[in-house]
């Protein structure tokens, strides 16, 4: 039989001013099942908590109701206190008579009446509270890192150095990501390759890092601490154990006119290729889409149309018949570091985007984007670092840089600021001026956003020392005019139209999430915003967590990020993962759903509505042990306790601990005739 204690807090004057706490205690003492009801000035104070603990001991209470502030404020406090007094913390509830009562009413009579109702309601609820035990689930101490850019590499290294195994999955043939394509980095102008390559090699050689390149995450099952991840290893057509990276196959390949992804389309590569000299692993991959042999096979030719690479390979490492294979890894935590792509304003646009046809990108060869400029400036690039423009290989004497192309433009592009463009454009002007001393670098900008250590100094340097001409205003049209590229713009400071006859134009196009991020997000059941960036659990307090426990975000998959930020985020995710791995079990709130197998008919409505995929199918067997049906089972490790399954269960065969039908029924009942 219930023995409930009710404790009414004055909260100084905050409650007592409008609620007659004495009267509340008086009324509740009369309430069936209540054995003690006391009011006190500050229940959350130490003496207040002592008062509750003593009452629990003296009256052998089976439930406690604290009438005070919002449970969001002090539920933990009072549950802890009750636990110290030997009571199960989950039979303690709070009646909110401050935020929801004393602070919003002035009529003392009304407020007191409402406080009494509220207290009674919660008392009735508590009569049905069950003692609950915190859920403990085992943790597999292996991490998965998706994406082998600088963020992914950093996260993998930090976790591995922390003593745990890491599986690093990269969809390209080599790790390194966009950073490997950059020439120099702001604000120090140190060579990108030089600082990145050692990290790539370190990751490759790390005893606790298992690297899957040319691979993608196919399927993610399970939940925090207990993921089971299926990885598609795309057919590489090159045996990774046999290949010694000599490169003979690439020299032998007859089809050499394929746009190089690494050089952003500014150079050509063979069908079998290593993306770039410093690639890790240094091993080619056969691009079956462009390979003559596979084109032939797709056409259904009787005999193979080519086979040069196989003939040349002394190690016999080439395998034309290999298919995609799948490996499954047991994982405890997942770091997503899939990075970004640049908004391709030229070609077909996805729904909602209009593109910028007026800028001639993709039609005028000397209109390029930021990444292409990085390749032009890079010593490892198609021009060997010489500043030569794509169309005719001439040295451009006037280069126009346009910022915010597709950024901060809700009309035609993205509404957000892509964040890195201000800095890399400043860098581009410097790189250009350092190579073409008599050249003109003209920048069209909306604002110069250079918040960051040494950033503003850096962009000032571009203007003051290297003499980049910054024009505040937008560009309306870019088109070919003979061997020049005409740029029409407007100077909003001097209010005049500006026409520049440029030799080359560099567009700082918007930073967007990687294509396919949506599908990955669904596999991980992580939400994403209207622009496709993955959502963090809380914009301020949980910036690298997601709403799916055990999945973390690093780098530009969450928002436009520069290198220092990506690396910092990677470190943060590593800290979260190592924290998770520091215990053998992890604790979860026991407010989860439970299926009554006796009455469940296995219609699986619950499964359809569960946002977390927490519902599993369980066989029911008859006396002889033959399967005679299926029922739903809620995996307490996955369930987050929303209770949507409870509401859609027609036979009411699911309960949500802490919010059971019994409890809600009692609350509604308690309000009858108030």
């Amino acid at each position, binding site marked *: 039989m219930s023995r409930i204690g009710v404790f009414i807090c004055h909260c100084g004057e905050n409650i007592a001013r409008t609620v007659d706490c004495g009267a509340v205690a008086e009324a509740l003492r009369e309430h069936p099942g209540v054995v003690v009801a006391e009011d006190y000035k500050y229940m959350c104070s130490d003496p207040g908590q002592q008062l509750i603990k003593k009452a629990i001991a003296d009256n052998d209470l089976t439930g406690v109701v604290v009438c005070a502030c919002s449970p969001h404020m002090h539920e933990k406090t009072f549950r802890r206190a009750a636990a110290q007094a030997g009571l199960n913390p989950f039979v303690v509830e709070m009646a909110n008579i401050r935020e929801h009562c004393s602070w919003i009413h002035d009529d003392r009579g009304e407020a007191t009446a409402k406080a009494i109702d509220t207290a009674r309601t919660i008392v009735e609820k508590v009569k049905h509270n069950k003692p609950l035990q915190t859920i403990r689930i085992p943790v597999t101490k292996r991490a998965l890192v998706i994406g082998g850019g600088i963020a992914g590499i950093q996260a993998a290294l930090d976790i591995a150095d922390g003593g745990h195994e890491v599986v690093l999955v990269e969809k390209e043939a080599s790790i390194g990501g966009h950073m490997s394509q950059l020439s120099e980095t702001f604000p120090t102008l140190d060579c990108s390759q030089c600082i990145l390559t050692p990290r790539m090699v370190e990751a490759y050689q790390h005893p606790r890092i298992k690297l899957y390149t040319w691979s993608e995450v196919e399927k993610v099952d399970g939940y925090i601490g207990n993921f089971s991840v299926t990885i598609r290893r795309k057919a590489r057509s090159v045996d990774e154990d046999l290949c010694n990276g000599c490169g003979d196959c690439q020299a032998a390949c007859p089809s050499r006119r394929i746009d190089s992804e690494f050089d952003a389309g500014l150079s050509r590569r063979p069908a079998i290729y290593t993306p770039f000299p410093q690639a890790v692993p240094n091993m080619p991959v056969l691009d079956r889409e462009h390979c003559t042999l596979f084109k032939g096979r797709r056409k259904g030719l009787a005999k193979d149309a080519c086979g040069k690479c196989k003939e040349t390979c002394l190690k016999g490492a080439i395998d034309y018949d290999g298919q995609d294979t799948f490996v499954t890894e047991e994982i405890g935590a997942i770091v997503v570091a899939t990075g970004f792509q640049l908004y391709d304003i030229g070609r077909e646009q996805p729904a909602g985007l209009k593109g910028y046809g007026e800028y001639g990108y993709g039609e005028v060869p000397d209109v390029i984007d930021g990444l292409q400029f990085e390749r032009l400036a890079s010593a490892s690039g198609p021009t060997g670092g010489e500043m030569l423009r794509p169309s005719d290989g001439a040295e451009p004497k006037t280069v126009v840089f346009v910022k915010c192309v597709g950024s901060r433009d809700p009309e035609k592009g993205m509404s957000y600021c892509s964040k890195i463009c201000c800095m890399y454009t400043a860098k581009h002007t410097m790189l250009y001026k350092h190579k073409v001393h008599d050249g003109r670098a003209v920048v069209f900008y909306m604002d110069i956003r250079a918040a960051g250590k040494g950033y503003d100094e850096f962009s000032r340097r571009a203007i003051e020392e290297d003499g980049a001409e910054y024009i505040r205003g937008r560009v309306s049209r870019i088109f070919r005019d003979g061997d020049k590229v005409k740029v029409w713009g407007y100077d909003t400071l001097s209010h005049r139209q500006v026409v520049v006859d440029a030799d080359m134009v560099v567009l700082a196009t918007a930073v967007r999430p990687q294509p396919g991020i949506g599908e990955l997000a669904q596999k991980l059941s992580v939400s994403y915003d209207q622009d496709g960036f993955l959502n963090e659990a809380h914009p301020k307090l949980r910036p690298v967590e997601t709403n799916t426990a055990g999945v973390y975000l690093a780098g530009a998959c969450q928002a436009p990020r520069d290198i220092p930020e990506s690396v910092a985020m990677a470190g943060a995710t590593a800290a979260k993962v190592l924290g998770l791995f520091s215990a053998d079990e992890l604790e979860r709130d026991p407010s989860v759903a439970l299926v009554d197998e006796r*009455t469940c008919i296995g*219609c699986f409505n619950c499964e359809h509505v569960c946002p977390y995929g927490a519902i599993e199918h369980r066989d029911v067997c008859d006396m002889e042990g033959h399967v005679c049906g299926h029922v739903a089972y809620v995996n307490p490790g996955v369930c987050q306790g929303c209770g949507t399954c409870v509401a*859609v269960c027609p036979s009411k065969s699911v309960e949500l601990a802490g919010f059971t*039908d019994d409890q809600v029924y009692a609350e509604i009942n308690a309000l009858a005739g108030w």
Partner: protein
Amino acid sequence: MSELQDTARRLLDEGLVQVVIGWEEGPRGARPVFVTSAADCERLIFDARCVHNLATFLNPRRSQITALGKAAVVVKGCDAKAVAGLLREAQLERAGIVLIGVRCGGVAGEPATLAPPALSAETVSARCWGCDVREPESVDMLVGEAQPEPPVTADLDERVAALDALSPAERFAFWTKELSRCTQCYACRQACPLCCCERCIVEKTEPQWIETSPHPRGNFAWHLTRAQHLAGRCVGCGECERACPVGIPLGLINRKLQQVVYELYGYTVSEDPAVPAPIGAYATDDTQDFIE
């Protein structure tokens, strides 16, 4: 209806099924029958009196029927939709049953007549109004001759519209009067092919959400819940209304909800179990005019 009988006979002879669920001539008109031997197949009939929705007997919890073995069941359009409902909710496996589809031109309101009545606006069942299935598609075999559209009868939609036109108070009066007759005998539930819970919510006593004492308040709770649980699932076979001993026009409520799920979510109940039910699915841009 020899084609039906032959089909049934073949299924039993070849041991493809152990029982054929159909209709037979009873002492007071057509009634369901469970034929387990080829010899008895001659008892099978199908005519305008075969109103009963035989999908009801596929409820896996009817152990005395499942005990008979694998079943073939004769289905009209509305029955086939009910079977789809059971498949959708994992109550059946398609491979576990054989569906004999009958071409149907509408059934009579009243099965208990010695000869099939000529279908007319007077005799045809209200359920047939707006029925779009002359021959079920989801079946394994189809028997019977092509059928005409059922005669136009009193339009359910018109009757629903008439109620919609009243003020809430008047509607409340109407239903209070109707529901006050309800004795909570749950015949509506038993007759419904989709009410197939092991333990109905009304029999859950902890807590007792629905008052079982047959006063209008308990009756409102029961019929609100019955209807809500069938929203987007009801196939409009009308068996609940026919089964009701006190003649409560449940068809109106079911029809209303069919309209609602169509207007709000563009959903119409179909023979395709792959189409998800409207409740339990959602679209991020679902209408929310009713939300402040």
